[in-house]
């Protein structure tokens, strides 16, 4: 599918005959040019007119409940798009600015996310760094103070872990590939007297933005 391909709403509106003449002409031109969209259009029409698909049989409730539980684990929610005009937060300014930022005339797409993870307030700042990669700064607060003796582990969906120990105000994970991650923020196990199990924060960062899972 080409990058300028039709979204599903436009395709549906065309099939339903709900478009103005100008929009209709644009869709027909695209269908004539794009083999993938034309194929989808043909199959969609065939399915929508298929009388065998009007049956509404269901499955046992327990099967559906189990499946929905699995689906919930995969669902994500968009938290932020990549922003062109976002300034780096004050806590990293003057410290480790990305090399790509050296050209002040070209702003770098970035994202700032603030999240409470376990007992910590966590701020994550992402900057795009080349093709499908990002540089990530993470700061961790406890109360209003920088947290001390905290370890951060970023685990990519392919299982590769990247661990940092928070020694100063923040940590950097450089050139992280787009994808799904687990972020564990934990007090140094030797100092952690709490019996509570720490839960990882699940997120995905991709070319569209930042998603929470």
């Amino acid at each position, binding site marked *: 599918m080409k990058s300028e391909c039709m979204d*599903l709403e436009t395709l*549906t509106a065309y099939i339903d005959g709900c478009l103005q003449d100008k929009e209709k002409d644009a869709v*027909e031109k695209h269908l004539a040019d794009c083999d993938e969209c034309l194929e989808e259009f043909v199959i969609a029409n065939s399915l929508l007119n298929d009388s065998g698909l009007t049956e509404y049989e269901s499955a046992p409730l327990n099967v559906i409940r189990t499946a929905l539980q699995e689906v919930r684990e995969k669902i994500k929610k968009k938290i932020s798009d990549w922003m062109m005009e976002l300034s780096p937060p004050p806590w990293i300014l003057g410290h480790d600015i990305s090399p790509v930022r050296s050209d002040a005339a070209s702003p770098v797409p970035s994202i700032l996310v603030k999240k409470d993870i376990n007992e910590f307030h966590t701020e994550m700042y992402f900057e795009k760094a080349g093709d499908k990669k990002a540089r990530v700064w993470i700061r961790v607060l406890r109360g209003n103070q920088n947290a001390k003796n905290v370890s951060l582990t970023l685990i990519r969906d392919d299982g590769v872990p990247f661990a940092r120990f928070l020694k100063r105000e923040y940590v950097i994970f450089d050139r992280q590939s787009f994808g799904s991650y687990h972020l564990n923020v934990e007090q140094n196990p030797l100092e952690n007297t709490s019996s509570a199990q720490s839960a990882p924060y699940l997120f995905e960062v991709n070319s569209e933005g930042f998603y929470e899972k």
Partner: protein
Amino acid sequence: MKRLTPEEEQKILHECITHKRCEKLSRQYWNLIYKTVEKTFIFKNAPLVREEIEEVHQDVFVQLFDDDCRRLRQYREGGGRNLAGWVILIANRTALNHLRGKDPHGILGRQYLILFEDIKQEFDIRREVNRLEARQKLLKILDTTDQLPTLERLVFKLHYVYELSLAEIASHLDKEIGNIYTIKSRAIKHLKELVED
């Protein structure tokens, strides 16, 4: 399960989007989604591997509920489309994206295959005694379709590549069948001229 009225559809949609109670909606469309995925696989001549169809079936539900039920919130009544129709379109796109991820050249293969069988008569390709020459002529016809005006190109592809009847094309494009017949005849005439040039 019975077909829902528009009011019932709105009710299960509301439950799902606002209250995150998605069981009723899932039960209602469970098998519809499975069958849609299966039929998309059949259309694409993909092997019907149960585990793979179940994986895509689950992906459709992820699409429906992802990002705060974004896809379900996009549903608009009207145009004769009910919620089941919207679900079918989402399931179809999810299955196609899955299959295209596995075989990016699947569409091209299908085009050549059908054209070889169906268009020989229209262009009198049987006269070509040499199979290589016949093949080259077919490839030239395919390349030349890009030079046709939009509607001629579209009708040509729908008829000769996807084997839709002129009546089906008229219905899909919301035009009179006589109009489609004229467009198709014009496309063939133009193509013959272009190929001979």
